[in-house]
């Protein structure tokens, strides 16, 4: 299921995005910045001395073999790992220049700035409408017009509006898998965040739904900084501007996607992206 897209869409379209996003020099290059970052689950260290600058309004892909710490890194950005007992980190994580772990930073307001889309779509047992406005409601927004507007714009941006506009009041569980995932994307962008984190958002979807979500990512990067974890090399090549390759908790190589796939500097990277890896 996971890699079914590969068989259908064999050729990476690296060229397309270059035409779409010709100029991004005025955006911050170190919007999310890991500095000598170490991370531990209890006694086991999962991230080792990671130095990574993720640029604003681009798509950065994290790739690497299973268990290398991609999700862990991603979940550090919105401090989702705070839920786990016995975690510890060393080094710095800066988001737009301020430390994410600064005592003055409230984790809730941090998370409001960062939307997240999970591998398994996780709509709430509520109506489609209530799913989209969930973030606004917990932030205390009550005005009907604000909420209505947010629903329409988010669903439009998530390319779901036309499919669901007539049944906003119905349960979100009536949607298809791909629609649910797009609903989760709409939910993530309804808060108007600056960053969107995606952890293998297409791994449970068929090629058509995957294609829709990839198009969506492509559109979204005009306004959002996107970090995406993927196991699908073609997908990484298609959607991302930059790619970071991790191996056993270490950042092995990080560069323009094109370069990473055509001409990687490290042997390990080359082996991995060519599929010659365990």
């Amino acid at each position, binding site marked *: 299921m996971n890699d079914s897209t590969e068989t259908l869409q064999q050729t990476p379209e690296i060229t397309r995005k270059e035409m779409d996003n010709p100029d991004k020099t005025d955006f911050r290059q170190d919007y999310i910045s890991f500095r000598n970052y170490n991370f531990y689950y209890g006694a086991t260290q999962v991230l080792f001395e990671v130095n990574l600058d993720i640029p604003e309004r681009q798509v950065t892909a994290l790739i690497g073999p299973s268990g290398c710490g991609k999700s862990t890194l991603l979940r550090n950005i*919105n401090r*989702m790992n705070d*839920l786990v007992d016995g975690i510890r980190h060393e080094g710095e994580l800066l988001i737009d220049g301020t430390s994410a772990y600064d005592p003055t930073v409230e984790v*809730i*307001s941090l*998370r*409001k700035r*960062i*939307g*997240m889309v*999970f591998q*398994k779509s*996780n*709509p*709430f*047992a509520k109506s489609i409408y209530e799913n989209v406005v*969930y*973030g606004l*409601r*917990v*932030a205390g927004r009550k005005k009907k017009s604000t909420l209505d507007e947010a629903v329409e714009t988010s669903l439009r941006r998530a390319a779901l509006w036309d499919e669901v506009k007539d049944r906003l009041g119905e*349960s979100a*569980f009536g949607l298809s898998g791909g629609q649910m995932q797009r609903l*989760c994307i709409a*939910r*993530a962008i309804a*808060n108007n965040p600056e960053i969107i984190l995606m952890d293998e958002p297409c791994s449970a979807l068929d090629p058509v739904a995957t294609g829709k979500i990839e198009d969506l990512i492509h559109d979204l990067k005009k306004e959002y900084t996107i970090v995406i974890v993927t196991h699908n090399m073609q997908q990484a090549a298609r959607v991302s501007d930059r790619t970071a390759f991790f191996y056993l908790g270490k950042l092995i190589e990080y560069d323009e996607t094109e370069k990473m796939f055509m001409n990687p500097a490290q042997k390990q990277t080359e082996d991995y992206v060519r599929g010659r890896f365990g």
Partner: protein
Amino acid sequence: MENNASSTSTKSPAPKGEIWVWFTSLGLVLGLAMVLFLFGLILMRGFSFFWPVPVVQLELKEDSESVFRGNTSFAGVIASTQERSLQEIAVEEEILLEEEEEVEADGILGQALQTISEYRVFVGSRDRYGQSFRYFRHNDILERSFPEDIIRAERRVEGDAFFFPQRIQFQDGSEVTREDAIFEDELDRVVKEARSRRSQINRIDRREIGPINLEIRQLTMDLRYLNRIERSEGELTEAQQAERERLTGRIAKLNEQFELLRDQADELRETNQSIRVFYEYADGTNGQIAIGDLFRFYYPNRLGFLQRVQVAGIQFWEFVSGYPREANMSGGIFPAIFGTFVMTLIMSIAVTPFGVITAIYLREYAVQGPLVRAVRIAINNLAGVPSIVFGVFGLGFFVYIMGGTIDSLFFSQAQELGTPTFGTGGILWAGLTLALLNLPVVIVATEESISAVPRGVREGSLACGASKWQTIQRLVIPASLPGILTGMILAMARGAGEVAPLMLVGVVALAPNLPVDGTFPFVHLERKFMHLGFHIYDVGFQSPDSEAAIPTVFATTLILIALIVVLNLSAILLRNHIRKKHKGSAF
């Protein structure tokens, strides 16, 4: 997929451990059989209580064993046929009559294997025969017949009776006899009229005199309080004297009203007493009954099937909607049904929020460690504590401490006069005691359903910027509602049938008033109440004629089970409704 796997495995030759499948299914079958048998028995015997059966008239041989006080003719309903050995009978009679007669040891041994068969017959008329059931040996019976004209009468006292009505005597002395064509219609009419008079009397007693009585009692208590002050202080202040005058005046006025109403009721009663029905027993002896004491009657040997259904329906309705009479021996069980229902409701309302809050704290906030583990073990063990212990705790904590405190704060006058309000057993304390008893059930069920909420949902919520409490409140609790309701269902099933602890905290065999009624403040949580479970105990094992009470016990059991089923069914329907909304959340 799994199905496929198992079907292929059954094809493989003699799989190991297969024999245990039979053992396990045997366990299931046994369990089911026992449950079905129990339900079948209760259903059958419970419903047969309401079903009108034909009445048989038995003519006995003169001088036979079965003859009782010289009567050779009896009418009644055959309850069962049974075999008894002579030895058993002899022993029983010895105990019964305490006769010191020398019974030859050889004789008994010789007769021990010899059995006789006899009918157990419900002959009614406790006032006449002492017991409702008599035994007639088959050999002693000369003749059996099913007389058309015999009626089964439900009487105010002394249970049912079987007799042939002869004549009706009216107030003015005029009579209608059975030879008259209108006799049966007249009998119908006077009984119906008597019934409407009786309900009038009831209305006056309950609705009109009741509140007046209550007020008089309250005012008398205030007056007694003032008198006491006078005695201890020597003299009353001006205001107190004025108050006393007001009270006395008001009481006098209420007494006037009371007497007026009482006269009305007495007049109705008198009418009901002055019209009399004369009748003949099966053996020809005469008797009479005031129309007010004859509640209802029917001709059991004349009924067709549909009429039987109708009579059964009426009797069922009277049973579930009526008030008990004669120390619960007859009449209905409405107060017990209502008391059980209200108490179960109070219990559910108390136990659910308490249990849910506890479970949320334990599962979501408490630091999981040895302490929490110890608390969990304690909670689980709480479920194993004998319920009577909870009763004792309820008595000590709720009734004496909490009730006593409430009384001394708000009802100090009554308390000083020795009539506690909350400081004695009542439906509130009973409900709370049972809530405590069932707390573990709700906590465990809630905890389980909370931990079953997928991690993805929580993370999704937190990622949207929700706080932990917002996540719990908006997603976790709604998603665990079905589990919470499961806990509530279990609690209700257990709570509605629990009797032992209630005996300490407020259940009574006969409560004068319902816990909810038309007098302000409408809900009287301090009142004592009746309960179906306790009713079963009281009627079945505490009544003077327990043999006659057996059908009532079965009928009451049936109603208790039906009530629990109805309560549970409504909770289950609610749960399914909620579940449907959350369907798919666990894919």
